[in-house]
């Protein structure tokens, strides 16, 4: 983790430094706990969206078919999109919705 560059809010500034180990360390630090298969599924979805430069929103999560909103909040407590994107190593979404 010492070699991973993060901004003042904790987001990775260089996605190439992201590994599953880094994700787990951030999850532990943010009190999300042990990442489960469902977490990884969401992380993959977010990374794919980010790669295609598609904006992330809670409405998008609802339509994703990967996870519903209730589960999403339960998996990533304390603000699901901002927490999950931090774990996924991608920038925090700028959208208000």
């Amino acid at each position, binding site marked *: 983790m010492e070699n991973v560059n993060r901004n003042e809010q904790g987001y990775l500034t260089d996605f190439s430094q992201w590994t599953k180990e880094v994700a787990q360390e951030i999850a532990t630090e943010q009190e999300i706990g042990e990442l489960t298969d469902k977490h990884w599924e969401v992380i993959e979805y977010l990374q794919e969206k980010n790669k295609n430069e598609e904006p992330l929103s809670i409405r998008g999560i609802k339509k994703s078919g990967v996870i519903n909103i209730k589960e999403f909040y339960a998996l990533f407590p304390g603000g699901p999109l*901002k927490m999950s994107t931090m774990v996924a190593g991608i920038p925090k979404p700028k959208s208000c919705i």
Partner: protein
Amino acid sequence: MGKTKVKKMLFILSKATLENVYAAFIMANGARMEGIDSEIFFTFFGLEAIQKNKLKDLRVATVGNPAMHMPTMLGGLPGMEAFATKMMKKEMEKLDMPPVDEFLEILSDSGCKLWACKLAVEMFKLKEKDLIDELDGILTIGDFYGQADVDGCQIVYI
């Protein structure tokens, strides 16, 4: 977001014009997205936003709204409100803003509590079946203040 002392946001929505309803919804949802608790208390005309047969037909106010930049007389013409509403909904869809019914679902799933005002429900002679299924209950304003019993709570009237 950095650190904030705000832990809970309570909104009182008293109007049913589209711009006010969306203001409440976006702020309540935005709070949940930041890990802040939120609740909405629908009172008076705000109740239209949670009435099954009315919530899809909320409109923008074209009269008495200087920001519409049209003469009040013109805003009062038949069809003007519907036209302005259609235009605004189109713009909102472009920004991926959900329609009212879907937004209520998102709010409820996100853990935002939705309350109807008891006095207003009685005044408009509404039954529970007239209101959305996602509703968490019908409260008096006193009950609603009880929901504010935490540090870092803010109440916003819209």
